[in-house]
């Protein structure tokens, strides 16, 4: 039907692509590993050696697990241990392995309106924020960071959800967007350290609380089970996971630095 289409569209349009077809796997991932640039740093070495392309879909832990349940990935790389173990227990994952860790930090405006101070006691810090009703930006998206944040509030004996919309503000967004919002409104927020270090728009915000044991942030990696998901590229996925857990993979993670700081600490098999 030549006469139905406008010449300029016809001239410029390019035929439907089939998508590059080689060996590849899809990794359903949390956002911090992508936003901090980790994949850009370590994946090329794996691809060069194994000839397997790694396609990362970074959507936050909650969404990544849901996508994986729909069999829309071969590897799951997230940071919410309880949810990961449940995923494996339900048969969606073959097994879960610790991959690496870093920690969460509480960031806030330099003026520190809640007088959090530079404390390593996260309970006290959160209680101070709740007590002064200083603005706090929550991910509110069921991500790994959000799960951690809710656990921390619970441990501090505060139920901030009741104040949602006042000082407690749920952004329903990813870590980067939530950081942008927190900086824009002078609010405190909880972030993983890797995202914070790599974040380019820190404004006047700085780390106000860090070092509490409760802020430990463990990343896990799971091969998605071919029994639940017959289309999964199990061999390729296992190849990637084996590499991540190998000395070479662990060294690559340890070597990744931003501004001279190490972002992730490999701890496979420990």
């Amino acid at each position: 039907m030549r006469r139905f289409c406008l010449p300029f569209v016809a001239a410029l349009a390019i035929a439907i692509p089939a998508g590059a077809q080689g060996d590849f796997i899809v990794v359903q991932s949390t956002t911090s590993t992508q936003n901090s640039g980790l994949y850009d740093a370590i994946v090329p070495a794996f691809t060069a050696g194994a000839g397997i392309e790694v396609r990362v879909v970074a959507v936050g832990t909650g969404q990544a697990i849901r996508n994986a349940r729909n069999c829309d990935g071969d590897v799951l790389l997230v940071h919410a241990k309880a949810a990961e173990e449940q995923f494996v227990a339900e048969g969606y994952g073959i097994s879960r392995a610790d991959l690496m860790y870093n920690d969460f930090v509480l960031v806030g405006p330099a003026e520190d309106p809640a007088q959090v101070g530079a404390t390593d006691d996260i309970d006290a810090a959160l209680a101070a924020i709740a007590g002064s009703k200083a603005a706090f930006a929550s991910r509110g998206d069921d991500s790994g960071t959000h799960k951690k944040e809710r656990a921390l509030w619970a441990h501090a004996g505060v139920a901030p959800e009741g104040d949602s919309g006042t000082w407690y503000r749920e952004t329903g967004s990813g870590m980067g967007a939530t950081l942008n919002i927190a900086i824009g409104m002078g609010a405190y927020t909880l972030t993983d350290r890797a995202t914070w270090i790599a974040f380019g728009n820190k404004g006047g915000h700085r780390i106000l609380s860090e070092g509490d044991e409760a802020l430990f942030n463990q990343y896990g990696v799971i091969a998605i089970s071919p029994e639940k998901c017959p289309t999964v590229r199990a061999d390729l996925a296992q190849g990637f996971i084996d590499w991540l857990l190998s000395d070479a993979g662990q060294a690559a993670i340890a070597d990744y630095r931003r501004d001279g700081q190490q972002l992730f600490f490999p701890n496979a098999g420990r």
Partner: protein
Amino acid sequence: MQGFGDAFGAAFALIARFDTDLVEIVGLSLRVTLSATLFACLIGFPLGALLAVGRFPLRGALTVLVNALMGLPPVVVGLVVYLMLSRAGPLGTLGLLYTPTAMIVAQTILVTPIIAALTRQIVADLDAEYHETLRSMGAGAGMRMRTLLWDGRFALTTAALAGMGRALAEVGAVMIVGGNIDHVTRVMTTAIALETSRGELALALGLGIVLMILSLALNSLAMGARVGAARMAHA
């Protein structure tokens, strides 16, 4: 805070060094958006013409529906297409999720109502002028639709451009069905979203400026072709 100066600097630097990643991203954006616009035209032009000149039951309801679908949020389209193309979905066996094809499908769905609705209006206006003539010639519905579409072709360029603009600008649908995978499904808008979430606001805005330039170039090209053709051939 990173300012506009940094953004323009970033945009200029990207273009000046002909950044290969940028070229790849722009290329994919063009491929996805133009393909989607083409398919949306192939569907939307005849559909709009049918709504304009056809006489069949539920035509009014269908027209309202098409007009309403113009306001469809891209993220909803993305979700629907995701649910269709997901391995767990009805079309999962096609293995299209996280491919450019999936992005083209989503944008085609997004853009078709816009092109169809604008086409309906353009064709209806033209039909007011042509109706009696075509009827006196005994032209059937199919011939009338073809005649009106061809004679409305210059106005329909605008409909196609409106559709293309929406496809080029949207991020919600391609983000969900494409996955923003580097070197595979990353396009201008998802790259901008990623850089924003990395806090690289100047780079994000710089990419936005490149996108604007791209959009300007496409529109200029189309308008130039339209004016030239209109002047040369069929005033």
